């Protein structure tokens, strides 16, 4: 059942933002011989839409007061990305770091993150990025909501809180339009990439965020989690094959000349496809 014992309207809103660091995709290469991904040369960054989720949380805090907590799961080096989030304006940060969490699919990942959220406790709202740029499944936010047994709003571009009524209003993007929905708190919302303009870090918070602020690190044991539900053992899916994606054979025929000549030649090449239907 929900861990949302909830802040009353006097204390404002307690938002937990889930974030992760991802390798910069343009710097990941495929090793043609071993057919594996080479991330060794890729630098990491905070997953794009997670920054939009953090910005949305900070705006809600500015409007209603309260607290913003950060939660991440990953190797110890993720701590520095959490500290960047603290410098942007978050109040506290938690990192779930344990080999037992590794190799998890979306079922095991959402299970572990939900456990971390329960351990932080007292939340009103969970905000996530819509999806990660490396996994790109978008399945973790609904998964967290199911484990916590709270409502979900996915693909939100705007989120507004009515803390006194214990409600949020959100605009969701759909094919060919949008909808505005109302959900009770506590709930989980995932935020679209580009939903807002994430702020730069606050210089006045920098020293505190980088050095003084505690980042709480949890292992599977410290959260008393059953290792069978985590990482690879807790993941129903397996990767059966990894291949370099075949690329379609294209003619790659260059057309030269003045723009007028290029246009004329091109029309001759594609005339079969541009006939009036």
């Amino acid at each position, binding site marked *: 059942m929900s861990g949302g014992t909830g802040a009353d309207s006097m204390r404002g809103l307690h938002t937990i933002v889930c974030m992760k660091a991802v390798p910069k*995709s*343009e710097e990941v290469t*495929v090793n043609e011989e071993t*057919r594996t*991904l080479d991330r060794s040369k890729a630098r990491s960054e905070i997953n794009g839409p997670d920054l939009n989720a953090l910005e949305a949380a900070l705006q809600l805090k500015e409007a209603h007061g309260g607290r913003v907590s950060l939660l991440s799961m990953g190797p110890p080096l993720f701590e520095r990305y959490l500290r960047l989030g603290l410098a942007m304006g978050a109040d506290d940060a938690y990192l779930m770091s344990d080999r037992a969490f590794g190799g998890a*699919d*979306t*079922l*095991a990942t*959402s299970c572990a993150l939900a456990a971390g959220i329960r351990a932080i406790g007292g939340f009103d709202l969970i905000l996530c990025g819509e999806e990660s740029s*490396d996994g*790109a*499944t978008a*399945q973790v*936010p*609904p*998964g967290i909501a199911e*484990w916590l047994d709270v*409502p979900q709003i*996915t693909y939100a571009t705007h989120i507004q809180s009515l803390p006194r009524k214990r409600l949020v209003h959100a605009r969701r*993007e*759909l*094919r*060919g*339009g*949008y*909808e*505005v*929905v109302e*959900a009770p708190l506590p709930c989980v919302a995932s935020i679209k*990439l*580009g939903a807002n303009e994430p702020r730069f870090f606050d210089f006045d918070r920098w020293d505190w965020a980088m050095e003084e602020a505690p980042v709480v690190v949890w292992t599977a044991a410290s959260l008393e989690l059953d290792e*069978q*539900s985590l990482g690879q053992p807790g993941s*129903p*899916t*397996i*990767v*059966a*094959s990894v291949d370099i*994606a075949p*690329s*379609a054979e*294209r*003619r*790659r*025929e*260059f057309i030269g000349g003045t723009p*007028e000549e*290029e*246009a004329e030649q*091109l*029309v001759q*090449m*594609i*005339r079969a*496809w*541009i*006939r*009036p239907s």
Partner: protein
Amino acid sequence: MTAPLYPPDQASGLWVYLEQQDGVLEPVSVELLGKARQLADQSGQAVTAVLAGYEIGHLSAPAVAHGADEVLVAEHRLLRQYTTAPYAKVVAALIEERKPNMLLLGATANGRDLAGRLAVRLRTGLTADCTDLALNEDGLLVGMVTGFGNGILAGILCPQHRPQMATVRPGVFARSQPGEWRSGRIKRVPVTLAEADAPVRVLRQVTSRGGDITAAERLVIGGRGVHGDFDTLRELAALIEAEVGASRVAVDEGWIDREAMVGQTGYVTRPKLAIVCGVSGAMQFTVGIQDAETVVAINSDPEAPIFDAADYCIVDDVSEVLPPLIEAIRRERGNGGG
């Protein structure tokens, strides 16, 4: 291991969740029925379509015509508009009762919303955003997914847990021809829902059935190199009855609606002709046009990777080439091209 809800040997049937909005089927649902029919014929399974909503009975006949052996129709006034909780409750109850082997959903916003919730409730595996589906030698569903902007292609299995779930991107499977001669069983299932089962309310919804780039036969696509001038692209598109698409950069610049985005974070398209203007052609983009029959690329940078993904290549400024191209096409069509 997380215990399966039911073991593989009790599971049977290939299910397709049919997404509809306002009584109209999503194109991807029809695409999935065609693929499901093909996989089911290969493996001797039956195809069951799951249709949830309100006043949607008229959609069962097209579901049968596109390949379903059986249609389960769940209607309730609380299902009039999609919200996660009541839809998840109804579909999960059907799965627990009937134990399907596989469940396919479209990777639309609401399809992914529902799939992510269901997979955790059913404690099973979900392969997200597949670009192809196949059966392996053991009859397991193999979901093909791309990673890192189409650089790799991975095959994902769910060996022990049922149903084996996958969401599939709109546009990756061709729409099958409806077979009016097909027959199927249409079964209305009882639905029990109370207000408390629908905690999220839709306050308002604004959707238009505008151009659908995933179904377009011809596409004119613009990127950074059009410098915001989508009007000329629209003029060209109108002339050849094409839809207008865009790269992520053009969408992020606010030049065109997100609906038009082609590529990994947008839509996969399969037009007969794509004219790609001023797009550099990173893999995140080219995944969206790889199934096009013919690709034309216009870009001022001769080194742009888009030329590796094109059949006809013009190294020039888009703004220089499009006006004479529009003229030349007008002349071609004027000369009794039809």
